[in-house]
């Protein structure tokens, strides 16, 4: 297995000398190709900051992040955009679909900014729509779709470029439980089918239980790590809940 993501002793501090917040404090972990990893933590635990650093939206204070062997903390300017465009896929909590575009156009946008030809775009959009079960909403605008459909369209947009790494930030946060389950099934399906590498941030144990490995973060540090192994999803969920209980009240609030 080759290493897609390597987070090496990353630190991220906010504030000034007198009032320093260590949002990310010496975190090290790595993802292999085809892994589906969840990061769990309460609000303010630093998980979103970490994700922002990995997605190059935020800069690390110290440490290195390697994507497919390339140190992305060293990339600058427009190369950052190209990196995001070509190597990463994003799924956000509130979908972030562009409301003036149809579902098809939203998905196509990810390809058209890579100068893919219209014919090729059409082929690939239809293919991914088929896999995610959104063929029938391609012509719709976001206000005509349900939350679950929107998030699957967003997932399609993230996956269509065949990114090395898909970053999902609370993807089920704005969905009801049925839609959430549907989305997670789709993500798992895609993960297995296309062997896409997914890093998902969540504070929801149920969502996390779809991952193959869960990393727990508390106060900017790695607190624990669970591997699913051969457990069923239910068993894995129970183990996650145990850790959450161990973490204490802080995560219960979020649940």
């Amino acid at each position, binding site marked *: 297995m080759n290493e897609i993501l390597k987070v090496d002793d990353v630190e991220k501090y906010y504030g000034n000398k007198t009032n320093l917040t260590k949002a990310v404090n010496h975190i090290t972990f790595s993802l292999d190709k085809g892994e589906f990893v969840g990061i769990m933590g309460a609000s303010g635990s630093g998980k979103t900051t970490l994700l922002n650093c990995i997605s190059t939206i935020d800069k690390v204070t110290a440490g290195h992040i390697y994507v497919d062997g390339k140190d992305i903390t060293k990339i600058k300017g427009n190369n950052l955009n190209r990196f995001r465009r070509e190597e990463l896929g994003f799924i956000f909590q509130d979908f*972030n679909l*562009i409301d*003036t*575009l149809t579902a098809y156009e939203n998905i196509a946008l990810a390809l*058209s900014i890579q100068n893919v030809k219209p014919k090729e775009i059409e082929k690939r959009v239809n293919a991914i729509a088929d896999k995610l079960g959104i063929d029938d909403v391609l012509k719709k605008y976001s206000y005509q779709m349900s939350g679950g459909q929107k998030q699957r369209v967003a997932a399609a947009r993230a996956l269509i470029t065949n990114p090395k790494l898909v970053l999902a930030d609370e993807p089920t946060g704005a969905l009801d439980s049925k839609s959430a389950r549907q989305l997670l099934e789709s993500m798992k399906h895609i993960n297995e089918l296309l062997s896409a590498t997914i890093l998902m941030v969540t504070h929801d144990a149920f969502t996390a239980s779809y991952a193959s490995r869960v990393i727990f973060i508390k106060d900017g540090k790695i607190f624990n790590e669970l591997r699913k192994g051969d457990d069923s999803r239910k068993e894995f969920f129970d183990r996650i809940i145990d850790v959450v209980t161990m973490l204490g009240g802080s995560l219960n609030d979020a649940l």
Partner: protein
Amino acid sequence: MMLFKLSVRNIIKSIQNYLIYFVTLILGVAIFYVFNALGSQTIMLNVSSDTHDVIKMMNDTMSAVSVFVSFILGFLIVYASAFLMKRRKKEFGIYMLLGMGKSKVSAILIIETVLIGIVSLAAGLLVGAAVSQGMSIVVANMFEADMTRFQFVVSGEAIAKTIIYFLVIYVIVIALDIFVVGKTRLINLINAAKQSEKNHAKNPIICLIVFVMACGLLASAYYNVTKGAGEIKEASQFGVQILKGIIGTFMVFWSLSGMIILVARKNKRLYYKGVNSFSIRELDSRINTTVFSGGIICILLFFTICILSSAMAIKKSVNASLEECAVKDVQLRWYISDDELANTDINDSRLFENYLLDKGVDLSKLTSDTEVHVYYDEDIKRGDVVGEAIDDKSIDDFYRDYLRRAAIGAVHLSDYNRFAKSYGAKQYELAEDEYILVCDYNETEKMFNNGLSYGSKISINGKEYSPKYSVCQDGFVEISDTHANIGFVIVPDDVRFTHLESMEFVYSADYSTHNKSEYTQLNKYYDEKNIKKIVGGKEDGDDAESIRCVTKQYLYDTSVGLTIMIIFVGIYLGIIFLISSAAILALKELSEATDNREKYKTLRRIGVDEKQISHSLMLQCGMFFGLPLLLAIIHSIFGMQTAMIILQYFGHSGLFFSILFAAAVILVIYGIYFFITYSCSRKIISE
């Protein structure tokens, strides 16, 4: 004090939104001041008394127009402030959530409005005072006044007026803001940010149909006001065409959003290239939500272009007419009727000159003088020249009767040629049985040409004369500010008039000096009142009643003055319309930028370059500003031709320059708004 601080910080914080508001207020105040201060600016100019009369009239007109302008500015300012209020609903919601009473929220608004009001008034007046100095140079140039006594003038009256008008507007703004705050409920304020407009895309097929219909409507209006303009007899018919144009414009804007998508999607290569699909869709949704204001703005811009260019065209054409018609420095005229004719030796070719000298009028400083005798003989009526065309339907009975009764002036060939030669005009030759009809007043000329085409003959003392030319010849014997010769005939020198009704003697000359001060002195001497006084012995004496005297200077002063007034009113209204249009577009575009922050964030996350984002924003902004202007320009291409027909100024070459002038004014003001909008939007979406 707390509230004051809050207000100041609010303004500074939302400077991106307020900048457009500020610029609009400052421009509004400045323009209002400049045009109301015109009077004071011109008072110190060294101009003749006739010009002063014109300037007074101009001031009165400006005052009247200012009332209208204040309404437009008032609406614009109220609209803009209501718009900004909407953007800040959430902020007010938070204040109220924290327990701030509605009265305190209103107090914040009042302080803000007062602050903005004071700053914008002060800045606007400063800008206005500076600009109006430049204006006075322009005015002096137009009046051809000498600027020897130029000084920096600030009009207290105009300042007071500006302050009062804008105070009223600000008070209305405050009242409306308080009303809005009092009416709203907390829950709506808090949720205001979340309520996004739903973008209901229109059915493209219906859009296509409406668009085609709109094009048809506009095309027919275009045709009717240009090629088919001859059919238009009454103002109401013209109004119908304007109405068609307005409806067509709104239909275009209604259907435009659907059309853009329809066309763009056909071209897949273009549509799915980079962020084009995003840019086009964003622009499309903006147009879709601004159908009404888009139409209004387009129409305002159309009026602006027409007003600005016709104002300049009129100026050009008046100057051209003056150059063609006010050809002599001074002209004295003397009318005598039949009872006096008995005591006059009409065969004396220097009769009038001798008469003037006899009365003590000083003609010594004059050169290249000529005397023309115009005979009004019972034998030749105006109707005779019209010939058979007198029965034409276009002539009403009253006018026909006049034509049959009134004698047409007749001039001996040598008299006319001498006068024509003195200012370098065309001289004529005549066979012994020919006459020439000279006329340059448009309407009459048409009627006469109609008559001449029948070869209408005239007869004097039983002898018949036929027209040498089948059309009227350009020319005149009386100098004027415009082509106003309603016609006379040139006859051979041997024609003797035996049934004279009346006669006119026209003595024309140039000043022998063009030294400035002497020139002014001469103009004062040949002032009509002065000449009458000399001839009559006293002002308006009996003898002097039939004496007229005009100088070139007099013609320039009166006619140029009137033109300048039209130009100023035109520019005044044009700029106000322009500011209003641009401000509305800018506010809309800025609010979109604020609403779309998230979208640009998404674009950045999926890896769109900053360059592409700037490019996309530029495209959206440019098209949003450009489309109404484009349609307005198309409208004006046809509208201008009509305006020229109405103003009867076609045929003059000034139109191109005038349109350039209008384009320059529009580009500058529109450009300022566009630039501010683009750079502020850029900042907003980069946050």
